[in-house]
């Protein structure tokens, strides 16, 4: 059937409907082609995120940073340390000089494990007094600690069989000649919710704060109010601060709600200082608000701003240590992770809520969050189009 043979257009029926669908399809495709950022996110979100996360995520992390406190100087201690060094689970880099220093290293999150070999370990072993090796594991992330703890037990049962020969062969294992005391600190029962709930606080805040400000500038542009705002004597930095401030309050309220729910519904305590937690949470909220605002100055429409927010949100979830152990990721992924505010906030919130960390323990992460916020705000002010050029 050729169209318009008898000059009569058919507007009913399946073919006509199909051709209208086709008209809408072509129009949509043309609009999509003009919207470069949407087009780019369609290609890049799946591709980069797949590659990034496919290679980065590892739920059985190895090379976990470990601090040693060795108070015994015997052949046994030395072979224990070298066995640890060759195992792929432990990365023995730090030597602690005292128990206090060992505690600080774990509390600040710089090491995942602290291993203490007490004085006279070798002598007591030979005497058959079953001396104890103390292994302190930071179990605030139970997944990260799990694999290494079981590897450690296997390692210990074989490491001394070489040394226990000759006159001391009698001490060779039927039963281990020494005791391994494993302290799972901060989350002794390995309950996942203790790790997840503080993490969720960071994730929820990231998403909501990003979207609040990501829409703020583009909304003004789309509604046409930006033109008269720009014609008024108000500076870009004043607009930014004025737009961010109300959401700082909103974010603070959100964080308060989550904390109350964490305590009442999930029984997650706040071991450390509540004041410190509130202060640093506000800093984290500010960091995310400034990222959102930066997106808002770059995006040309509210849709683009949303897409940018999600593009930023995904690595925050997957590379920050929220879903998967941070130390399980390859180095390059950890470097990306170190840039993200959520990574630092997770250390802060888990540190304060579960471990009772103090400001001194967390100062590196606080500094990182502060620098990030400053950089995002500077970029936003620089990017802000002060004219309509």
């Amino acid at each position: 059937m050729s169209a318009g043979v008898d000059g009569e257009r058919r507007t009913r029926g399946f073919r006509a409907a199909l051709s209208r669908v086709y008209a809408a399809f072509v129009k949509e495709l043309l609009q999509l082609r003009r919207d470069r950022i949407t087009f780019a996110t369609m290609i890049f979100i799946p591709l980069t995120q797949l590659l990034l996360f496919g290679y980065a995520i590892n739920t059985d992390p190895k090379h976990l940073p470990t601090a040693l406190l060795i108070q015994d100087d015997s052949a046994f201690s030395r072979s224990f340390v070298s066995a640890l060094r060759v195992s792929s689970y432990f990365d023995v880099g730090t030597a602690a000089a005292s128990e206090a220093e060992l505690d600080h290293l774990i509390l600040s999150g710089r090491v995942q494990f602290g291993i203490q070999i007490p004085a006279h370990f070798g002598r007591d072993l030979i005497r058959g007094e079953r001396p104890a090796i103390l292994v302190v594991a930071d179990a605030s992330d139970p997944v990260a600690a799990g694999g290494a703890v079981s590897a450690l037990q296997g390692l210990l049962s074989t490491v001394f069989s070489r040394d226990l020969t000759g006159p001391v062969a009698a001490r060779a294992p039927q039963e281990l000649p020494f005791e391994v005391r494993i302290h799972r600190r901060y989350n002794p029962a390995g309950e996942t919710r203790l790790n997840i709930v503080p993490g969720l606080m960071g994730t929820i805040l990231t998403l909501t704060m990003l979207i609040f400000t990501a829409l703020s500038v583009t909304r003004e542009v789309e509604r046409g109010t930006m033109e008269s705002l720009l014609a008024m004597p108000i500076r870009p930095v004043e607009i930014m601060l004025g737009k961010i401030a109300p959401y700082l309050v909103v974010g603070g309220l959100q964080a308060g709600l989550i904390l109350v729910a964490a305590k009442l519904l999930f029984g997650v305590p706040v071991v450390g200082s509540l004041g410190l937690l509130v202060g640093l949470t506000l800093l984290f909220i500010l960091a995310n608000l400034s990222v959102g605002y930066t997106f808002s100055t770059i995006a040309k429409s509210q849709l683009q701003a949303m897409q940018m927010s999600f593009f930023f949100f995904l690595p925050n979830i997957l590379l920050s240590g929220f879903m998967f152990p941070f130390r399980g990721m390859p180095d390059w992924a950890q470097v990306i992770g170190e840039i993200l505010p959520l990574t630092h906030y997770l250390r802060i919130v888990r540190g304060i809520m579960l471990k009772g960390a103090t400001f001194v323990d967390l100062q590196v992460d606080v500094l990182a969050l502060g620098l990030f916020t400053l950089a995002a705000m500077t970029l936003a002010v620089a990017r802000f189009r002060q004219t309509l050029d």
Partner: protein
Amino acid sequence: MTTSVPAHGAPEPAIVIDVEGLTKSFGGRTVVRNLSMQVHRGLIYGFLGPNGSGKTTTLRMLCGLLTPDSGHGTCLGYDILTQSAEIKRHVGYMTQRFSLYADLSIRENLEFVARVYNLDDPRAAADGAIRRLGLENRAGQLAGELSGGWKQRLALGACILPGPQLLLLDEPTAGVDPKARRDFWDEIHALAHQGMTVLVSTHYMDEAERCHEIAYIAYGELLAHGSVEEVIADAHLATYIVTGPDLADLAEHLKTLEGVDMVAPFGTALHVSGRDKTRLDAATKDLREHGPQVWSAGEATLEDVFIDLMSRTKDNFA
């Protein structure tokens, strides 16, 4: 209404806008070409031209929203290239599109403006503006819910709230009914009477005739300026007004004649104009003498002049 005293305390210049050679292009297309103009204090200066002629772009360059590619000048004595912050403090710019916050009430919008301009008592300033606008009963209503005419009045009210010395109005009465338009112009004349300078763009001819001076811009070039009478006289258009039967056919025929530069229907009459009176007379001699239509000598209107100016420039650009 209070007018703010300029911060520097110097006497206000008699020439409020003085720019020379302004040029602006977007993506290789020149929107404003080598534009120079002077606007005197206390005048209502009409800025006329067809859509896309560069009126909005010029206004935006004057208030610092756009940076000219070349050219220089001053606005209120401040350099338009380097002192846009000072210009913004003393200029009220009313955009073509309604640009107050639709989701804020009338009072909230006005208070926001008052605060941005650091007025001493934003609440009192907003109250004053609401009274002046006669909106006492609707101060709590959302700005987005107002009718077109009220939106324009509110936008003007917000513009003059900080007491600017210069008002830039970009097609303020587009899409507004005749009554609201008249009220709007009365308000503008009252403001000018108080010493405010007003630069208003429009494409309504009746509004042009309400201005003290006009400038006509087309295709980015300033083609004519002066008072309405001066602009008409400068065009040297000879015009006949034709009435009678079959005007549409006559118009088609006239357009083919040498010496007839413009044919335009006005209601039941036809305006026939030529730039050269002798040639126009020669071309239409037969028709004038033998009818059947009635020809009478007329005065060119402002619209005749502008349409003629426009067709001339189009020729230059074609």
